[in-house]
């Protein structure tokens, strides 16, 4: 990804030549990708971009900086994402206002706010393909004349109109002092230039009046440029209505979640060893998979290396690790070339692939906002609203993007609760893959017990936080996007991008962790630390004192930590306690850093204190109950 940076500053002061502004989910990120060639994360739900992306486009031998901003409904900063966009707008030269051709009237209020900024501006009438399909005809010339701004129909998905859009926006003069008075077709209604000047003032009764006038103008404009051809109720309409009805919607929600879990498991196991089956005996197996590659190809090579190095040498210890019964065990040996490669690639990567495949599919179809609708009342008990499920689900992949995605929530309080819950009770995919793969050998019920414990903890902690975290906790207010057929190439790019990011970020840290473990063992430092933590670990949690090693390494990588349980000969009960504690006890360093960045140091410390209490209590409870 060249020329690409994603920024997450709260008030960016960055300058840009072209800024993409528009409602959430209108296709800004796809358009940005088309213009710059940079792959971005675009999803079919409002709020997929919460930070901003910067890229470049060349035109007439000049280079222009272009920024993809978070979606916003108006320039009144009601949430953090909008605040980012408003800051970006101040420092941009030209605006591309992206609107949805299928719902013109909903987008024009923002367009008018933007026009009143008096910047060089062009409108991208995006989703023109859907508009054609839905029988919405827009007279582009007339619209452009009415607004006094060029309008270019585009289809970001295919690239239609994108070249013309860029040419038009760059051909516009930079200042636009005067603009069409077309916005005000009725001379007896005064124009309200103060409208945006006072936009930072919350709407008072006076503002309503102006807004109503704006709406009247908008309906009048839309009526004059748009014709709606009558169309019949389609299957998609039916599905769309059904999935938000109380009974059928609930059935659909349960089925989609079950299907998602099944698909993740199926794909994950298939990639690992070519077996097809959800639990128990596989339905069938084919000779395929990442595990055979390790066992049949890599192992013989590494055994040769082992002989060459001599099993007592330092190099052997670091590269190969310990031989278990004279053989390499990819989980237990703990050398850089054995466990250091197997954990990220052999055990975790297959589940990373399958998880990201499924979540990307859910993102692109547009099902997630509907799920949010159904979970709204449950999330209410936790001081949240249904949309908090989106960061939570993203957190299952990796806590870091999950915590960043809490920006789609409106207030600090909600972001604090959601982030704290993610860091405590949502294990990342890497950790889950290891739990399923390693603890799963002890029995399916053990895995089920771990998940149930985490889920109950998530809910109970949320319930308590609702009453302890004071402040405004707004309710769900969400535009539900239409279902869309995922575009195959976009899906492929997205999944691939996320997998590459995992490989790039995880493997070096895994190798480093394995190295550190070996060094620390050699200098025997763990003994002292173990003594210090012994009361907590042995008395309260009922774990052997050596398990301090995986707990501490968990701060670097959780998946490596589970691997360190292997040589300890834990009982099933200890495995369960260990996995739960590992999920909760100190988020990995990467998560901790975003937690501090996103919440601020004080709240991050509060969140950490809550985590320490929760992990102590839950670990002890499991030890008591089982």
């Amino acid at each position, binding site marked *: 990804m060249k020329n690409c940076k994603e920024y997450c500053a709260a008030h960016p002061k960055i300058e840009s030549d072209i800024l993409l502004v528009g409602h959430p989910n209108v296709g800004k990120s796809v358009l940005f990708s088309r213009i710059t060639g940079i792959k971005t994360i675009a999803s079919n739900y409002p709020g997929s971009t919460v930070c901003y992306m910067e890229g470049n486009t060349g035109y007439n031998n000049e280079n222009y900086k272009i920024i993809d901003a978070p979606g916003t409904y108006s320039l*009144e900063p009601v949430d953090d994402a909008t605040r980012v966009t408003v800051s970006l707008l101040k420092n941009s030269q030209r605006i591309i206002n992206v609107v949805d051709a299928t719902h013109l009237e909903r987008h024009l209020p923002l367009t008018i706010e933007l026009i009143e900024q008096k910047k060089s501006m062009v409108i991208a009438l995006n989703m023109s393909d859907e508009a054609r399909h839905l029988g919405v005809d827009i007279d582009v010339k007339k619209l452009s004349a009415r607004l006094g701004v060029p309008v270019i129909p585009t289809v970001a998905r295919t690239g239609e109109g994108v070249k013309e859009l860029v040419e038009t926006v760059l051909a516009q003069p930079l200042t636009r002092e005067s603009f069409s008075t077309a916005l005000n077709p009725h001379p007896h209604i005064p124009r309200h230039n103060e409208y945006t000047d006072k936009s930072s003032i919350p709407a008072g009764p006076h503002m309503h009046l102006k807004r109503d006038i704006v709406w009247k103008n908008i309906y009048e404009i839309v009526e004059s440029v748009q014709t709606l051809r009558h169309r019949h109720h389609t299957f998609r309409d039916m599905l769309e*209505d059904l999935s*938000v009805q109380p009974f059928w919607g609930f059935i659909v929600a349960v089925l989609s979640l079950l299907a998602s879990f099944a698909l993740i498991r199926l794909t994950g196991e298939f990639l690992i060893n070519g077996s097809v089956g959800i639990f128990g005996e596989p339905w069938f197996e084919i000779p395929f998979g990442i595990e055979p590659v390790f066992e049949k190809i890599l192992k013989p090579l590494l055994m040769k290396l082992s002989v060459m190095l001599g099993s007592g040498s330092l190099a052997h210890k670091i590269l190969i690790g310990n031989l278990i019964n004279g053989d390499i065990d990819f989980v237990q040996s703990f050398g850089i070339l054995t466990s250091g490669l197997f954990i990220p690639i052999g055990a975790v990567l297959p589940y990373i692939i399958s998880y990201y495949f499924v979540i990307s599919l859910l993102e692109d179809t547009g099902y997630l906002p509907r799920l949010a609708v159904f979970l709204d*009342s449950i999330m209410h008990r936790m001081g949240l609203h249904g949309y908090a499920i989106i960061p939570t689900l993203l957190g299952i992949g990796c806590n870091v993007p999950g915590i960043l995605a809490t920006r789609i929530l409106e207030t600090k309080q909600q972001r604090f609760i959601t982030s704290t819950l993610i860091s405590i009770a949502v294990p990342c995919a890497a950790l889950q893959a290891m739990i399923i793969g390693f603890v799963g050998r002890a029995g399916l019920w053990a895995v089920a017990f771990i998940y149930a414990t985490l889920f109950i903890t998530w809910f109970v902690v949320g319930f308590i936080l609702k009453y302890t975290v004071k402040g*405004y906790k*707004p*309710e769900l207010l969400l*535009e539900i996007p239409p279902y869309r057929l995922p575009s195959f190439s976009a899906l492929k790019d997205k999944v691939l991008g996320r997998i590459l990011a995992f490989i790039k970020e995880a493997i070096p840290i895994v190798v480093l962790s394995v190295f550190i473990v070996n060094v620390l063992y050699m200098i025997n430092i763990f003994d002292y630390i173990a003594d210090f933590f012994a009361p907590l670990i042995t008395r309260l949690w009922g774990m052997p004192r050596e398990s301090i090693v995986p707990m501490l390494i968990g701060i670097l990588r959780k998946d490596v930590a589970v691997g360190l349980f292997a040589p300890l000969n834990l009982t099933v009960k200890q495995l369960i306690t260990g996995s739960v504690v590992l999920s909760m006890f100190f988020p990995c360093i990467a998560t901790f850093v975003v937690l501090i960045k996103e919440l601020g140091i004080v709240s991050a410390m509060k969140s950490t204190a809550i985590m320490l209490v929760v992990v102590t209590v839950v670990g002890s409870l499991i030890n008591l109950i089982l």
Partner: protein
Amino acid sequence: MSNTLLTELKKGDIAEIIAFAGGVAMLARLKAMGLSEGKIIKKLSDIRMGGPVILLVDRARIAIGKGMANKIIVEKQGNEEL
């Protein structure tokens, strides 16, 4: 016809938004979403049990949390079966 609350409407009811009984912050969010006085809405669904209400406004589907929906005063204009 008399005024009621959004939550009182039945599925398929068509109504005009009359007023909002909520605070400033709630109002700003609703307006930004295109929900303002005088708008015609159609109630598509009500999840009940504390769940949100789903509306059709300007042909877009919008989910509104129960507590917020309870503060939106509307005037029923008719019913159109879904």
